[in-house]
């Protein structure tokens, strides 16, 4: 029996509403941390307003700016993603994915270490590499991106031809860069917890992709999970 117009409309609104609800909190959450970073940068520049010709301070600011670019990329990624064709209905994969994601922000709540040109230079390099990889991965992925382990479309071209999770690799490289600005045991713990949940997240994601796309098993055989030739 065909559905009534009102039912179809309600279904569509519920679908779109859920999608918006899933996107907005994480985008706003990311923007909140972006705002905190801007405020921290203002305070840093306030304490050293004369650094225009001091290269080491330029590097420190560049590391902070790279962190902000990473946050903008995270927010943009969540805004641009497509709606899934299939997702897990149980909570465990969702909680794993959310924990893996939210722990990134916990890193930015740890007290920051004193500015140091060498550490900040290394941080900026890692963040630049992470941000670049992130953009390249997103261009390959188009809009098949998600926080939760969900199937949208199978992408096996570009970076994805060799690595199954280049976006996670980008995220981890950038996060390592951010952690170098903090340099404390708390930052190391946050990083370790993030890596653990990131691996669990990949397990869940590969599980659903294998279930939806029959060609995924073959793709798994000819590609590395994160680092070509190593893992």
């Amino acid at each position, binding site marked *: 029996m065909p559905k009534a117009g009102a039912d179809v409309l309600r279904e569509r609104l519920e679908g779109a509403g859920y999608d918006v609800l899933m996107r907005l909190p994480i985008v706003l959450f990311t923007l909140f941390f972006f705002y905190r970073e801007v405020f921290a940068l203002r305070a840093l520049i306030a304490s050293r307003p004369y650094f225009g010709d001091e290269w080491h301070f330029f590097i420190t600011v560049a590391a902070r700016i790279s962190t902000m*670019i990473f946050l903008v990329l995270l927010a943009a990624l969540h805004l641009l993603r497509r709606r899934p064709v299939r997702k897990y209905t149980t909570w465990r994969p969702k909680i794993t994915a959310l924990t893996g994601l939210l722990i990134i922000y916990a890193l930015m709540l740890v007290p920051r270490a004193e500015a140091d040109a060498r550490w900040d230079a290394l941080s900026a390099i890692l963040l*630049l590499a992470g941000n670049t990889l992130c953009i390249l991965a997103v261009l390959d992925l188009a809009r098949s991106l998600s926080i939760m382990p969900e199937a949208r479309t199978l992408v096996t071209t570009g970076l994805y031809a060799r690595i199954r999770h280049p976006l996670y690799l980008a995220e981890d490289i950038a996060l390592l860069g951010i952690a170098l600005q903090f340099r404390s045991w708390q930052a190391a713990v946050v990083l370790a917890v993030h890596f653990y949940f990131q691996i669990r997240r990949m397990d869940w994601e590969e599980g659903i992709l294998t279930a939806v796309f029959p060609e995924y098993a073959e793709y798994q055989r000819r590609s590395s999970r994160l680092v070509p030739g190593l893992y």
Partner: protein
Amino acid sequence: MPLLVVATTAGLTAAAIEFLPRTLYFPVVVFFAPSGVETTFLQPGQTMEHDCEHMLGEVTKSLRAVCRACKVLQRCAHGLSAAQRRALSHEPIPRPSARAANAPLTVVFAATDPGLAMNACRQAEQMSASQPAELRLRCFTAGAPR
């Protein structure tokens, strides 16, 4: 793509260096002594205006105690001029100046007679000797590396 990311990061960094100071409040106090010496106190910026005003009040109060006849000009400036930035930096400047050992406080002395400005600088150094270590000033001649 990597070049684009590097260029964007460098561009945004330069923009932050140039434009963010304009969103901050820098306490600037200028004292005009009857002897003709103009003394400028420069300090790092504050993110909040009331913190800046509080600092202005503190500096003015302590200087008023030393020189009641001095004319005072005080303000919370949005950003700093190139000359003020240079004065706060460790680069040499063309006037006698004094810097606190461990705090970014900088005092610049100007007078039509350069000797008079230098004397005022030395005097400030001597007067600060009784202060806590972080507030003790060290005087530098015009053009000297600081």
